[in-house]
């Protein structure tokens, strides 16, 4: 650096660069900035490569890699969901930014649209249009992760609102309103044996049911939730479980396997 550089900028007469020199510098800068933009790209891979978070995706999502590539990040699925179950991921998920996911504990997909609206709204087919009914959906698979805390397994009932008075999640109760979901906190329960997850499962017995504990006596009231092959992974069981944290969670993209058959 020459000593003249130390003088205040205002007074320094700006050196006139030749046209050629200006051009050379503009190309250099363009190359540099372009390279920086491109070098930022691999960073977008990191969150996905590390599988930091296996997100529960909306119904019909293609397999994760293809889904991320096919999603145009417009959020139309978010807009059509009647229970607002779908959220968009942020930049910390790399190129998953703007891609939809469902936080089932906060708000599960309860299929109250009846029509897989998110799939119909998707302009790219990232949510596959091949799916026609909710029974065909496979977002993931429910699993009892805290068996010891499960009320049914302890033979306990449940009374009150499932998730407390502050819970904002909604669920469609056909007995109250066939067409619209209502806040869970407006629907108190009084159950001799807690069967909330099974009771509210939008699919039914072949997805989730209560069974006697293995080897228990006939008069033993305790039951355990058993996940069946029809489980679609919607997450209603995870949302409704009154224990904190939930005893049953949906594991994204896991497929059902017959437990009696060794994998």
């Amino acid at each position, binding site marked *: 650096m020459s000593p003249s550089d130390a003088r205040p*900028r*205002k007074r320094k007469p700006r050196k006139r660069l030749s046209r050629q020199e*200006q*051009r050379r*510098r*503009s*190309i250099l*800068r*363009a*190359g540099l*900035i*372009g390279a920086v*933009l*491109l070098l*930022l*790209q691999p960073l*977008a*891979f990191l969150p996905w490569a590390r599988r930091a978070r296996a997100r529960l995706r909306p119904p019909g999502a293609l397999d994760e*890699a*293809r889904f*991320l*590539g*096919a*999603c*145009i*990040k*417009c*959020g*139309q699925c*978010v*807009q*059509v969901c009647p229970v607002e179950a779908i959220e*968009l991921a*942020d*930049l*910390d998920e*790399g*190129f998953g*930014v*703007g891609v939809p996911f469902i936080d089932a504990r906060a708000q599960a997909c309860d299929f109250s649209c009846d029509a897989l609206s998110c799939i119909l*709204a998707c*302009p*790219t*087919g990232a949510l596959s249009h091949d799916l026609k009914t909710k029974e065909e959906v496979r977002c993931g698979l429910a699993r009892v992760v805290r068996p010891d805390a499960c009320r049914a397994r302890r033979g306990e009932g449940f009374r009150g609102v499932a998730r407390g008075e502050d819970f904002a999640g909604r669920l469609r109760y056909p007995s109250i309103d066939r067409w619209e979901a209502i806040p869970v906190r407006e629907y108190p329960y009084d159950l001799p044996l807690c069967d909330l997850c099974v009771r509210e499962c939008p699919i039914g017995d072949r997805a989730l049911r209560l069974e006697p504990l293995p080897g228990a006596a006939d008069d033993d009231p305790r039951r355990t939730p058993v996940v069946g092959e029809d489980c679609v992974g919607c997450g209603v069981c995870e949302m409704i479980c009154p224990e904190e944290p939930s005893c049953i969670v949906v594991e994204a993209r896991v497929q059902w396997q017959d437990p009696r058959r060794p994998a």
Partner: protein
Amino acid sequence: MAGSEATGMSFLGDVATMLGRAPQKPGPRSDAAEIAHGRKRGKGMEVARLIEELASRPKVHTWRNRRWAVLIGVNLLFTLSYWVDVQLVEGSLTASRVVGFHLADVYSSFLVMLAQKHVAVNLVIGLVTVSLLWALVGGRAYCSWVCPYHLLAEWAESLHSWLAARGIVQDHPLHRGVRVVLWVVFAALALVTGHTLFLTLNPIGILSRAVVYGPSLALAWVLLLLVFEVVYARRAWCRYLCPIGLTYGAIGVAAPWRVVYQLDACAHEGECRKVCEVPHVLDLTIRGRATDVRMDVGPDCTRCGLCVDACPTESLRYEVKGLDALL
């Protein structure tokens, strides 16, 4: 030498300029242009007086205000459609549905199809509709009349100019060819990796989603870009980098709605080039450059109208090509 190449092919020359070539030396003039240029010889004093007068004249913002109203209106329509659930415009600027009809950003859709190796019918409907719209309205009019980043970048530009006038920052121009390179590389990356990497950093998508669905961390990236534009390179994203802008520019190469330059009254004082986001399109306003008395401003023009507002002699105007003939 290169100038003669551009004559008679000024349309192709304009396209080349959009793709990054420096505006070329003008070729032979039409007779009318020759006369118009001739009339201006020795009028230096008049121009000096005009420039002096300009300093005291209040600035006109007619088109800018109209444009800002439209830009904010369009983006608000997205927001309101979601929050008030009027469902007029669902989605965001990357893809949406307007009263049920698909619209999709052309470059984003192109990347998605490359990544997916699959042509989704809805996307095709969306991108063809959008292409038709901007082929008529004028390609990069999308940039200045719709794109939310453009508005923020305009404000950042004001700040940059204010700081530059005080010698605090300095503009560092980039070669505009880098935009074409990025356009191709992002497309190639989508094809090879199966991921639409550009969409991760796309400030338009990030902003549009923020406008509709609420703020996000990703806005930090947009802020970083704006800071870069303020302190280092004026309007860097829109001018040199954005592949979405380039796409719309290409779509609107022959758009009827455009800014037209009229040589006769022009004082060549350069007010227009000072305010222009893409000043290379206004090189034809430099003294002696225009080869005809009426010339279209090139396809990289965003139809923002700042030059129309700034021009003291009304030599730059909006025009719908062919409309005069019809009326």
